[in-house]
């Protein structure tokens, strides 16, 4: 961001250089983010405390694959190992302290740190979500550039498709793609694992509804911007239609959708949970479903906290991206 040095605030007329307001804004955002994370952690902790029955019993039952009650003597070592014998306030402070140091707890089932398990599984999920996010933007922008404010039928087709595709549930779209392209046409493998061919259908399943959503948000703005005076002036200068759309209009029109990126990442991770199940693709989604089924509470809440963390971080990044896309905000 070297260009920021040339902004008017730093001219040498003897005026004290004004500290860029966006810097202060971002500092505030970071403080607010820490608050959100703390509150999210507190919520997650107390949901765990609501667990009916004793956690030590749950853990022992999981270890032995049984459904029984245990004597206090049998429960004692487990309670000591996980710190359940401490008062709730101590447990709470330990939990928060652990999170601050990047300790998401220990899995009830695999007896490994949650962060280790997540980092082992997260690779394919990152590949899937990032590919989908890129695809979704490409689809959305292509649809907008080609159909917004064109002939009535074309525009209606474009926006109709956006509304329809945004409402498609991942499990249904995934199943249809799987049936058509893998089972009937046999173009892609039914169980692709982490291969490149195996990535196509899962990524499409995640990308199509998101593209519809981004498209809906962007189209409104895009059509508004097309009426702005600077668009007319660009056209008057003899700029071609496509150039106007790409160089002038798009830049403004993507802003609302960029704001929603933090939300979109959360939606993509939720979607990955379902898509990985549909296509039997390894990743964090499959893992968390298994963990929820086995009632491995620390593992599930660890993933939930991690997603909250990603949400908060991406919202800060969005703020920065905003300042880059919209020069007026650099102050």
């Amino acid at each position, binding site marked *: 961001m070297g260009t920021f040095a040339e902004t008017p605030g730093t001219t040498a007329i003897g005026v004290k250089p004004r500290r860029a307001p966006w810097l202060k804004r971002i500092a505030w955002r970071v403080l607010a983010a820490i608050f959100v994370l703390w509150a*999210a952690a507190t919520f997650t902790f107390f949901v765990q405390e609501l667990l009916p029955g004793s956690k030590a019993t749950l853990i022992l039952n999981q270890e032995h694959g049984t459904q029984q009650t245990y004597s206090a003597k049998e429960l004692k070592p487990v309670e000591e190992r996980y710190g359940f014998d401490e008062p709730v306030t101590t447990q709470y402070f330990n939990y928060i302290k652990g999170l601050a140091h990047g300790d998401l707890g220990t899995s009830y089932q695999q007896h490994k740190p949650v962060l280790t398990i997540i980092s082992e599984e997260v690779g394919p999920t990152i590949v899937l979500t990032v590919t989908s996010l890129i695809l979704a933007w490409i689809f959305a922008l292509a649809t907008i550039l080609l159909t917004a404010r064109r002939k009535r039928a074309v525009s209606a087709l474009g926006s109709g498709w956006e509304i329809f595709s945004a409402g498609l549930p991942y*499990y*249904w779209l995934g199943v249809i793609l799987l*049936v058509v392209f893998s089972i009937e046409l046999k173009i892609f493998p039914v169980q692709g694992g982490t291969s490149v061919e195996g990535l196509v259908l899962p990524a499409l399943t995640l990308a199509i509804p998101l593209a519809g959503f981004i498209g809906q948000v962007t189209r409104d703005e895009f059509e508004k911007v097309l009426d702005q005076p600077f668009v007319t002036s660009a056209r008057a200068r003899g700029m071609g239609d496509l150039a106007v759309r790409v160089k002038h209009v798009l830049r403004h029109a993507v802003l609302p959708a960029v704001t929603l990126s933090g939300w979109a990442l959360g939606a993509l991770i939720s979607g990955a949970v*379902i898509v990985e199940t549909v296509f039997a693709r390894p990743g964090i989604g499959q893992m968390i*479903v298994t963990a929820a*089924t086995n*009632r491995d509470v620390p593992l599930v809440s660890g993933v939930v906290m991690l997603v909250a963390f990603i949400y908060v971080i991406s919202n800060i990044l969005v703020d920065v991206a905003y300042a880059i896309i919209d020069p007026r905000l650099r102050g």
Partner: protein
Amino acid sequence: MSATPDIGRPGAPVGAPAPARFRLAVPEWVRGLRPGVILAGLIVAFFVVAMIVPSLLTSQDPYAVNLSQTLESPSWAHIMGTDQSGRDLYARIVYGARQSLLIGLGATGISVTIAIVLGVLAGLGNKWVDGIVSRGVEVMFAFPVLLLALLFVAVFGPSATTEIFAVGIGTAPGYARMVRGQVLATRDSGYVEAARALGHPYGSIVRRHIFPNAMRPLVVVFTLGVGQAIVWAAGIAFLGLGIPPPSPEWGALLNAGRNYITQAWWLEVMPGLAIVVFALSLTTLGRFVQQRLEGGVNR
């Protein structure tokens, strides 16, 4: 516009004859009913009937096992095919409507209740109350619906109740933000100011002016919410974390069909179709009502 000639309307030709006199008096709300809206209405009506009296829509028993016709593809006898136990899929979807719709209604009820409490608190409270509630809502946004559901399932075990609460709490922050916005807009409106100037007590202003006017536009949003809640709840059940399989609830059907995907596509595609079509119809109806309402406010 009404069916009788509108003399008071500017721009209406003054001496023009009144052809409308011989036309059938069409009620105002019927106009602007496009085919899509009518179709959506019929579909929603179909599922509401399925929810209340499913036996009207099918003569088949959704639980009747028939091992001589397992996994049959759609035909005239079984328009949506049969499952691994030879049960008629169409009958199961019709009978599943009750549970699915109740789950959707329950989840929406919970989320709307939370949203109204939080939104009204934030909208009417002072700076501090608003600040705290709004930050709290922001915190809730950090939990995607499905992940919240997985956390609830891990803690409380899978059940319909867990599903309803997870979807209800997970979708609440979006509504809460809308309610707050509406309450703020109403609070600062001219008629509320007028009522205040007339010396009406605060309680009665809230009850008679702010609350009804802030909530009216949201009725539509809540209706749409039922469709979305059903989509979410079915996703949870699809993962095997909802109501267990013998039930014909739509998500449970999706979950049960997963193992037969390579042999019997209809077991996955048909229940999904029911969910998508129902949710899409609710959206269409909701948008129609919203347009009508907005038109109504301006008149």
